[in-house]
């Protein structure tokens, strides 16, 4: 064993045996934004054997404030995040095998990747993908770690199939209009705090110290000096469609997904949420203005424009993303606003 991991093998709950286990494991990180880049860096430094990272976006200037693997040069070159992450991670630890996938983490894509994956780390920015991760976790019996943050607030919860409740037990449905970093802002320390929790849980699972896995959902607000643990033993729903007695894995089903269509000849992608809902157009208008968009609207719809981004949102949640035929990019923009 090289000197490289000496400070980690000195920690008795890992030791040399734990280090060998970490080296033999494969982690799938879904998303390479703030949480994804941070989680990937901590695990690469810790000596994970294999990392698969999937992300559909490229590095933008507004990412640099909190996404730790990226530089100004990555922005200038408009590198896809997964590719830029892989390059930096290889400089950090050339012993780690890294697979970078540029594209949308659909249920089919994730199911195809899951083969020998030991753990999934949620680093996505929307609940549709999280619910799909949750169903894949249950179907293939692979633990995953939920993490999210907005403003100075964040939360994390570790889901071990057969042991803990699952995300569908807690949420029952995809919550629409959760606050996102694009609507509520985000500070770097909140990102770091979620990463600290997700990677600690990851190390416990990788060294197979399941007794140490946190049984509660943690939430915190670093600006308000709050830290709360919510016990989860009673959250398990025996009738849950994801983890109950007769699972249907509803979020692997087309019917529960966002519908997208490229509108021929119009250079536009139409997005329709799986279930009709009512968007608060006035609130959304305020959020978009704060982000720098030029916004126009009426009681039925709202149109917004900023540099190359141009879109229209209707009250029922339907949207037209103009100026693109790229479905993944259109979904990315939509989900950054709606969560």
């Amino acid at each position, binding site marked *: 064993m090289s000197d490289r991991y000496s400070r980690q093998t000195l920690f008795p709950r890992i030791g040399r045996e734990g280090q060998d286990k970490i080296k033999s494991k494969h982690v799938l990180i879904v*998303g390479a*934004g*703030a*949480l*994804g880049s941070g989680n990937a860096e901590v695990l690469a430094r810790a000596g994970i054997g294999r990392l698969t990272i999937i992300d559909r976006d490229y590095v933008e200037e507004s990412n640099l404030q909190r996404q730790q693997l990226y530089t100004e040069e990555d922005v200038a070159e408009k590198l896809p995040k997964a590719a830029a992450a892989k390059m930096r991670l290889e400089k950090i630890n050339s012993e780690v095998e890294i697979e970078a996938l540029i594209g949308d983490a659909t249920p089919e894509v994730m199911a195809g990747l899951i083969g020998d994956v030991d753990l999934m780390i*949620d*680093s*996505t*920015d*929307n*609940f549709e993908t999280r619910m799909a991760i949750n169903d894949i976790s249950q179907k293939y019996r692979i633990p995953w770690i939920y*993490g*999210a*943050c*907005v*403003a100075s*607030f*964040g*939360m994390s919860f570790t889901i071990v199939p057969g042991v803990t*409740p699952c995300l569908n037990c*807690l*949420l029952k*449905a995809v*919550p*629409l*209009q*959760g*606050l*996102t*970093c694009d609507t*509520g802002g*985000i500070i770097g320390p909140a990102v770091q705090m*979620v990463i600290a929790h997700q990677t600690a849980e990851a190390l416990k699972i990788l060294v197979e110290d399941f007794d140490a896995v946190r049984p509660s*959902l943690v*939430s915190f*607000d670093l600006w*308000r000096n*709050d830290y*709360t*643990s*919510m*016990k*989860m*033993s*009673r*959250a398990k*729903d025996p009738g849950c469609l994801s983890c109950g007695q007769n699972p249907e894995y509803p979020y692997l089903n087309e019917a529960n997904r966002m519908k997208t269509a490229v509108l021929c000849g119009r250079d536009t992608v139409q997005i329709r949420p799986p279930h009709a809902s009512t968007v*608060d157009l006035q*609130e959304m208008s305020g959020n978009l203005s704060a982000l720098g968009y030029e916004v126009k609207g009426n009681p039925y719809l709202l149109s917004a424009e900023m540099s190359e981004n141009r879109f229209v949102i209707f009250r029922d949640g339907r949207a037209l993303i103009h100026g693109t035929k790229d479905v993944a990019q259109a979904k990315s923009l939509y989900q950054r606003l709606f*969560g």
Partner: protein
Amino acid sequence: MNKILFFAHLRDEAGEESVMLEASGKTVAELKAFVAENYGIHKLDTAMAAINEEFAPNEEMIKEGDVIAFIPPVSGG
């Protein structure tokens, strides 16, 4: 009486960190509806609820002295 705690943006919407209410005998779902209406909080129906730091489903009945926390799931990452 019951103490009701708000987390994250719910606190901004409520304008307070916590309120005191008579909630015993109500279910979690009923309390959510009551609070949403009386304190002008949007989207409280999708918030998670804890009673005395333990996750509580919508059907759960609130007892005298219980402390209820509303924690909104967040999506950023």
